[in-house]
């Protein structure tokens, strides 16, 4: 198999894209051959349906915030293929270390949507994953979780396990010192780790060009002695190939891969943000046709696997499902003693006393 890292050398301005924005598979046989046989049209159809679901669940979270039923929320709109591509590759035994714009991959990795809704509604219990799901709480502190993924991946390597730790982060996170330390340590220790940068071009109001003078984020990998690749993050097939290659490298003991998913934040930074203030509407218009769902619709339609009618049926079905999820999320009650009970394994006596005092005089919310 040819080495996709030399085939798509970021220093030569190459970006891995297998399906273009019109839903057409590359005419270049060296590129189209990268699509592995297991990624059948039927699997792509199923993936599209999951992307539609996450898009709707994401939109619902925005709506819940707008109607005062949720706190600040960070939308994934536009980045569904990046997360779906990784989700198709990741195995349940792998660990996910997300930032805060990862509803899609977290759901694919096993976090129930109602847990995430409950979390964004203000209850940390939503961050406790189900017992068989390996997903640490989202990292609000930008860029700090990459090092944890290096540590977890190093642990997997020490235990000689065939699994990986996958961290997600944004383009802004690559300006943090911890990104450098994570890349540097990963280069030295070669952990079972994949670092996926969702380069959505904006860190709140600061464009990618202000984060770094590097032409790509992928090329930063080279200085650390690890492979880096820029992928069209809106191309499900390209993302699948990149993450699969990275996972295989990691479990062969070859260490980390930096994947730059070149995508776009179609929405605001969060529900507390208004991107119209700083972002040229023409830029957004430019990206709308590159929507990861639209190109899959075109592709699947060309294979007679998508029609507007099936779309409408799915949408109606998912709407109902998501409504039921909202009800579940709203039924999760915040137990006030939870504020205290997870500070230490055993509460020191003074903390126990503080807990009892606060709970005795708890203000009615």
């Amino acid at each position, binding site marked *: 198999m040819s080495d996709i890292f030399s085939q798509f050398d970021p220093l030569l301005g190459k970006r891995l894209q297998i399906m273009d924005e019109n839903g057409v598979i590359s005419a270049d046989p060296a590129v189209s051959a990268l699509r592995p046989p297991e990624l059948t049209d039927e699997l792509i159809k199923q993936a599209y349906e999951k992307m539609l679901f996450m898009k709707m669940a994401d939109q619902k979270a925005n709506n819940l915030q707008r109607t005062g039923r949720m706190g600040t929320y960070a939308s994934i709109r536009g980045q569904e293929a990046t997360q779906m591509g990784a989700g198709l590759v990741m195995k349940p035994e792998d*660990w996910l270390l997300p930032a805060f714009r990862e509803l899609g991959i977290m759901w694919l990795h096993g976090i129930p949507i109602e847990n995430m809704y409950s979390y964004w509604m203000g209850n*940390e*219990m939503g*961050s*406790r*994953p189900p017992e068989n799901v390996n997903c*640490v*709480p989202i*990292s609000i*502190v930008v860029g*700090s*979780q*990459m*090092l*944890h*993924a*290096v*540590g*977890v*991946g*190093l*642990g*997997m390597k*020490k235990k000689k396990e065939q699994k990986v*730790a996958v961290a997600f982060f944004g383009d802004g996170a690559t300006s943090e*010192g*911890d990104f450098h*330390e*994570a890349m*540097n*340590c990963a280069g*030295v*220790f070669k952990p079972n780790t994949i670092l996926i940068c969702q380069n959505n071009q904006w860190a709140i109001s600061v464009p990618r060009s202000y984060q770094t003078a590097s032409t790509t984020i992928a090329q930063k990998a080279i200085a650390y002695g690890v492979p880096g690749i820029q992928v069209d993050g809106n191309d499900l097939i390209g993302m699948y190939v990149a993450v699969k290659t990275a996972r295989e490298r990691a479990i062969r003991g070859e260490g980390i891969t930096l994947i730059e998913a070149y995508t776009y934040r179609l929405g605001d930074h969060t529900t507390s943000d208004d991107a119209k203030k700083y972002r040229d509407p023409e830029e957004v218009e430019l990206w709308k046709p590159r929507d990861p769902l639209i190109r899959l619709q075109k592709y699947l339609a060309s294979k007679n696997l998508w029609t507007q009618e099936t779309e409408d049926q799915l949408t109606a079905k998912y709407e109902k499902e998501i409504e039921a999820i909202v009800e579940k999320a709203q039924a999760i009650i915040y137990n006030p003693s*939870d504020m205290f*009970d*997870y*500070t*230490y*394994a055993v509460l*020191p*006596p*003074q*903390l126990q006393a503080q807990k009892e005092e606060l709970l005795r005089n708890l203000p009615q919310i």
Partner: protein
Amino acid sequence: MENPKLNIVEAINLALKQEMERDPSVLIFGEDVGKDGGVFRVTDKLQAQFTEDRVFDSPLGESGIAGMAIGLAMYGFKPVVEVQFDGFYHQMLDQMLQHAARMRNRSRGRYTVPMVVRVPSGGGIKALEHHSESIETFVAHTPGLKVVYPSTPYDAKGLLLAAIRDPDPVIFMEPKRLYRAIKQEVPLEDYIVPIGVANVLQEGTDITVIAWGAMVREAQAAMENLKTNPTTAQYSVELIDLRTISPIDQATIFASVEKTGRLVIVQEAVKSFGPGAEIAALVAEKLLYSLKSPIHRVAAPDITVPYLQAEQWYLPNAQQIQNAITTVMAS
């Protein structure tokens, strides 16, 4: 086998060695801790015994050390990492405060971070700038962390074993000025000194003196000095080695001050907002009417730790402690 007489460096080394033999999940890493055995030789010979898989040098970056340790700890290992000098703890403060301290809480008990950060601490060895800091306030102010600070070889071994076995992250401060200053019989067998329990080094009825780390030795020197004067030789001083900064042992403090009615607190760190202030506040809240005279704090002034020519003026000393005891006894 007869118990050896060890200094603090040797006692910590013994604890690490024995715990690594007992528990295969214990890992040691940090700057120069491998072949070199650490700049203070605390991890001497451990790499040779346990291989590079379990004792390894890290790239020079404290946030990286802490961040990787958090990942490893969440994944079931027990990392014991070294910060080469106290002043560099701050480069891992973010990871410790935002993640190590909070992971249990944020994941509602699903993920825990049983790691130990060893921090050679404090002044008195004529070191470089940023090499003589007292960081306990920065760490003790963080819910989710525990902070211990032994002053003797016996406590160093027992507290370190307790720290490694603790299910939560522990900052283990080591008084570098005392590293080789004292030898003490240290049991070869397994024992722990529990976290959160202070040690009454000497019982007394007139006045309580609370110290920790290298200041315990200064307080002991002050008590020796008091014996040279017929008046002060009569003072019955109760000396408490705090041993754990957080969670602080309120019960021992309250029992002592209730008995003596007088309190002197000795802290190597700058005076304001430190554990000394916390102890004074606790006593004021609980025992104000038991006090026979105002509480007195002996601490460093609120200035940047001066470089080596001036550190002897800066560091709290036995004479100041002696004066404080005399003042409090007289008022």
